[in-house]
């Protein structure tokens, strides 16, 4: 049994315009930057809406952690009167993770070691801005996207 239990398959029909479709294309553009391994668009409940990460990455586990981290950044900064969380990056020896809030949840981008961080940071912020603008352009139910 999957932990989902009796969840319906509910495959969305093709060709239906949605907010998610609009932001998937933005995520696809970020993934084209040199040194970027891929990205995730995650809802705030941890659900993966879109992924361009390579198959060897355990996407669901990564999404669960990234969303929890994103919520801590959102809620912690708010509770402590430190303004609004706009973006973050976290670096390790083998690469970095960029994380930012979006109206749909969070966007995560994974980079390789030695990638041009300034370029990725700039493109990542642009992608977040585009997402926010795309969201504002839609109506309350996303019908215009």
């Amino acid at each position, binding site marked *: 049994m999957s*932990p989902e239990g009796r969840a319906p398959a509910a495959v969305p029909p093709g060709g239906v315009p949605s907010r998610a479709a609009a*932001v998937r294309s933005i995520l696809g553009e970020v993934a084209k930057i040199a040194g970027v391994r891929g990205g995730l668009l995650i*809802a705030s*409940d941890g659900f993966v809406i879109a992924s361009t990460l390579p198959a060897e990455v355990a996407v669901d586990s990564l999404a669960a952690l990234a*969303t929890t981290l994103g919520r*801590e950044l959102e809620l912690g900064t708010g509770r402590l009167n430190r303004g609004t969380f706009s973006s973050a990056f976290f670096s*390790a020896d083998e690469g970095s993770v960029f994380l930012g809030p979006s109206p749909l949840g969070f966007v995560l981008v994974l980079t390789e070691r030695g990638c041009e961080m300034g370029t990725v940071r700039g493109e990542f912020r642009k992608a977040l801005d585009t997402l926010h603008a795309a969201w504002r352009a839609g109506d309350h139910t*996303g019908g215009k996207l």
Partner: protein
Amino acid sequence: MELLQRAERCRREGRFEEGAALAREALAREPRSTLAHLLAGYLHAALRDPESADTAFRAALALDPEHPRAMLGLARIALERGDVRACRELLERSLRAYPDFPEAHALLEAVGMVPGVAAPEASSVAVTVARLSQVPRPDKSRECFLMRPDGSLVFAHPATATREALGAHLARVVSLAGATLIRAGLGPLRHAAVATNPGTTFLEADSRLVLALTLPPEVPVMEGQREATELWKRFVAEGAA
């Protein structure tokens, strides 16, 4: 069932408000549907409404006391509220019900590293603090924290009333970020930058210490990172580790 399928489709397409309305409609027709409560929980969580999500996940658990996804949902809400113990218990319960649950494993691993409450500053470190306070900080520094990974403060400037709460928040960020990087196969956390509108907080970390330096938003990221790295070296040279 058709309503639930439509609600699930909305969830997959990011139309959370519409999905939540459909889930409500489904529940009005079938109040004892575990799946409808679960889906409502997901959608409320996606809408960043933890109170409604909590109610929905609890309703799902009342109908199916071992539902692992309902327990995961509640565990995440418990962590958002700072209740690490409740979060851990729910994750352990979900893993007893479904041992191969990757998200629960990943979160439990991360929560194992998350401190519940920041430990108070120990009086034995008073001498160290006095010495560290003499270490020159960048002119533009707004806040500077040096702490242990468990959230206990070694040094804080300025010494505000919220410094321990801030230390605990930073410790949770460092733990969750570290677990995320490791899960992505990148290794332990070394550097970070968290941008908010009043400033950017630069982090330096190793297994023993975490430095958090907050600089105004106009400071370029590269410059801020360099300042944080230099300050980290000065603190370590003064015996902070």
